[in-house]
């Protein structure tokens, strides 16, 4: 048994590549250690400036930690395709709404694509898709193809827009990928204000300018709703009693009935709802039987922000608006968060393109003295009275609570509206402090796992155990360096995969050593026993590695997120152990044999 030059070359090469690939991680670690060691901010700044290239370079190439270890958000968002298709339809009637409502309900639980669900629901009713979609001469197949295309475009656009929003907000190395034809996977690390990011991501940012209807129309509609609810209450007790919260200071000319129990009507005809009853009223306005009572061309909406009335409590104004928008956010070219001229009130200034400017001039010119509401994602931000024709395409959103919110509005308006609402359907967020705990737990597991196994190997196999342990060390190095080299990230399940790999990697050596012991006990010489051990154990080792690799690969293909991290390290570790356990230890023994350093006792 002699050393094979090619194998020696391979071992040296693999070791060098591993160390070379992990070197930046080590530099990154030691540089940040050094940075931490400076007592004064001045010193650390000086150090950062003088080593800037080195620090950046090391950071870029170092082993990336997963979101669970450094803290971050993993989000899966879904484009609301039902909404998208509803937007694409025309001639919408009650039947259409009913069918789409069924599609919506089944899409919440079913894995089938929304297109298939839509097609099957229409087919059940024996209605051709062309009655509502595209051209009447189109066949169902042509329409589904078009809708499918629309869905793909919508996903691509949503991804673009969300990327813009994240870039504007400023997150280091965001990862945004699409999955299937309606999902986006978003991974963000190091987020200070999760709530703000969620709001930024999920808002459709659909900006609309809508005309307000006269207040007497609003009151007539509310009267109608109220009496209908009274009639319903007489039939059953379905409507919850939400009385109270009506301030005494405010004059009322309407009271009694489920609706007027929660609404406050002022003398000037404006209507308010107390903040405690907001959810109830919002849900009420969304009910289809309530919607049917509102004139076809109008809709009821609440303000985005409450006003404080005389009694010092918060009330949301209620508006009746024309359903068809006069102008939409598509014409906005520039948005800027600033403060209002009068003082500290944050607001967002908007500029329009030439088409929007012309339209805006015409609309404002034709509606002087009337109110136009600025509606964002179904909430009224402000509804100013048009004083004069606006010729320059400027408009402003006020009624904003904080500077941060103004800033976020600027971001979403600039990035443009999403083609359809996008909802969060999965979220995994780990805070940075838990991440630090995970790192500590992972490191302790890794070290104790290695110590436990290597101690056992030393005690049980003595000299041969040293070789096996060297192989395990190389194995861990290879796994980490492959992760670093391919910019894959290391997660807690990934560390678990490495720890498990330690246990499995020595198994190959156990098989070999047991075989060698058998050969020795049959009276073979040490050289022929070692040779026979490697040869005869090989087939079991290959089989076991192949089956483990296959399971890990399937886990990687079918699993998501955390489990994939485990599968990846297990795959790399298993593949590496074929090399380390067989080639590396064999060369170690060949070297020791050539130096007469091995005897029958060396295998325990």
């Amino acid at each position, binding site marked *: 048994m002699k050393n094979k030059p090619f194998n020696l070359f391979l071992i040296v090469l693999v070791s060098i590549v591993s160390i070379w690939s992990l070197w930046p991680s080590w530099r990154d670690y030691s540089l940040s250690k050094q940075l931490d060691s400076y007592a004064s901010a001045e010193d650390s700044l000086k150090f950062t400036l003088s080593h800037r290239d080195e620090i950046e370079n090391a950071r870029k190439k170092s082993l990336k930690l997963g979101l669970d270890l450094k803290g971050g958000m993993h989000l899966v968002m879904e484009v609301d395709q039902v909404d998208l298709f509803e937007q694409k339809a025309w001639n919408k009637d009650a039947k259409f709404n009913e069918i789409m409502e069924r599609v919506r309900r089944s899409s919440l*639980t079913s894995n089938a694509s929304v297109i298939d669900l839509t097609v099957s629901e229409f087919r059940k009713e024996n209605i051709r898709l062309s009655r509502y979609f595209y051209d009447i001469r189109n066949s169902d197949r042509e329409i589904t193809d078009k809708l499918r295309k629309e869905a793909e475009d919508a996903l691509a656009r949503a991804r673009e827009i969300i990327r813009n929003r994240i870039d504007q907000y400023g997150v280091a190395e965001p990862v945004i990928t699409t999955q299937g034809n309606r999902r986006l996977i978003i991974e963000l690390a190091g987020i200070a204000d999760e709530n703000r990011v969620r709001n930024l991501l999920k808002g459709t940012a659909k900006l609309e300018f809508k005309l307000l209807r006269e207040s007497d129309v609003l009151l007539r509609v509310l009267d109608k709703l109220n009496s209908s609810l009274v009639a319903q209450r007489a039939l059953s007790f379905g409507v919850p009693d939400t009385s109270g919260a009506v301030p005494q200071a405010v004059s009322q000319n309407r009271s009694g009935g489920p609706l007027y129990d929660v609404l406050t009507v002022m003398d000037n005809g404006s209507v308010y709802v107390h903040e405690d009853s907001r959810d109830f009223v919002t849900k009420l306005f969304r009910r289809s039987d309530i919607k049917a009572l509102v004139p076809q061309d109008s809709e009821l909406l609440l303000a985005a922000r409450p006003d404080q009335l005389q009694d010092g409590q918060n009330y949301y104004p209620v508006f009746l608006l024309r359903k068809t928008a006069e102008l939409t956010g598509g014409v906005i070219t520039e948005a800027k968060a600033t403060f209002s001229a009068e003082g500290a009130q944050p607001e967002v200034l908007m500029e329009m393109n030439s088409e929007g400017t012309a339209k805006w001039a015409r609309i404002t010119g034709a509606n002087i003295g009337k109110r136009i509401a600025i509606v964002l994602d179904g909430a009224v931000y402000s509804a100013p009275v048009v004083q004069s024709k606006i010729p320059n395409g400027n408009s402003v959103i006020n009624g904003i609570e904080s500077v941060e919110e103004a800033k976020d509005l600027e971001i979403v308006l600039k990035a443009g509206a999403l083609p359809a609402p996008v909802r969060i359907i999965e979220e995994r967020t780990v805070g940075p402090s838990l991440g630090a705990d995970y790192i500590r737990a992972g490191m302790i597991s890794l070290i104790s796992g290695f110590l436990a196994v290597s101690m056992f190997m030393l005690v049980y196999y003595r000299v041969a155990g040293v070789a096996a342990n060297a192989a395990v060390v190389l194995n861990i190095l290879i796994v980490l360096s492959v992760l670093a080299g391919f910019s894959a990230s290391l997660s807690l399940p990934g560390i678990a995969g490495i720890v498990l790999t330690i246990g499995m990697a020595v198994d190959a050596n156990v098989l070999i050593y047991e075989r060698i012991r058998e050969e020795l006990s049959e009276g073979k010489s040490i050289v022929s026993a070692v040779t026979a051990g490697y040869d005869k154990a090989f087939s079991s080792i290959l089989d076991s590695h192949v089956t483990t690799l296959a399971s890990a690969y399937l886990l990687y293909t079918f699993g998501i997120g955390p489990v994939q991290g485990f599968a990846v390290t297990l795959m790399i570790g298993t593949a590496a152990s074929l090399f380390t356990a067989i080639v590396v230890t064999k060369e170690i023994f060949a070297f020791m044999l050539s130096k007469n350093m091995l005897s029958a006792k060396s295998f325990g």
Partner: protein
Amino acid sequence: MRILHNTTIDFLKYRKVAYGISIALIVVGLVSLLFKGLNYGIDFRGGSEVVVRFEKDIDVSRVRSVLKEAGVSGTLKQYGMDRSFLLSTVFSGETNELKTLIDNAVRDRMPDNAHEIVRIESVGPTIASDLKWAAFKALLAALAAILLYVGIRFEFKFATAGVIAIFHDVLIVLGLFSILGGIFSFMPLEMDQSIIAAFLTVAGYSITDTVVVYDRIRERIRGRKPSEYEAIINQSLNQTLSRTIITSGTTLLTVLVLFIFAGPAIRGFAFAVFAGILIGTYSSVFVAAPLVYDWLRVTKSTVKLRGGSAS
């Protein structure tokens, strides 16, 4: 040092007893699965989970009542870390609202004990059903792949017996999860994605031990008469016994380390792998090889093994 050296245990003699034990274990598990069912984690059930960690020690019932007062629905349990609690509730894509609700409730009612929401997980119903389906496919594909590979490397009877042994291992661990689920507060044993990962790891590992035994049988059985099979299989089992125990032992050691040190997120996984490897080791000795023997005996066929050791 040597353990289990030169044993001469008549494994095949005890195979009927072993079959009985195995069947009993599986049946008990199945009964529990049928009546008690499994404790599904949010991966498969859908829902939201929030882990809140406090600065100072606090009683779970106190936190529970505070959250209840604030109108937070869901169940609160001790989480397997210091001063931490896990709230599980129905799925909501609006984690902002949930988070704000909890933050306000705890801050207002327990101002002297700072808290932090360290983890939020939320899985919608469509994702949950996707994950369930994917888990099922992964397990099925793994079994098929192993059947195919071992079938090619040995022969169909060996492969089938090996896959039955894997089934046996996974079923028993599944039964254990059903029986023990929810009993220990430090380890809720919920079925989630990580447990599927554990099952696949166990499947890969169980066949490893089995293949080692098969390999030895293949080495010795070639050209022998069926009447000698019993002795050969018994000898092969005895000769490979020590390596079967040691390989499982080293892996069990690392899994034990994971169970103790890697924290609550890994604990369920570590438990499943630990139990799976223990049972997998047992099954490769007492289930897989004896099944092959019985199959050969009943069909009165001779072994036509492919491949062979490289010697």
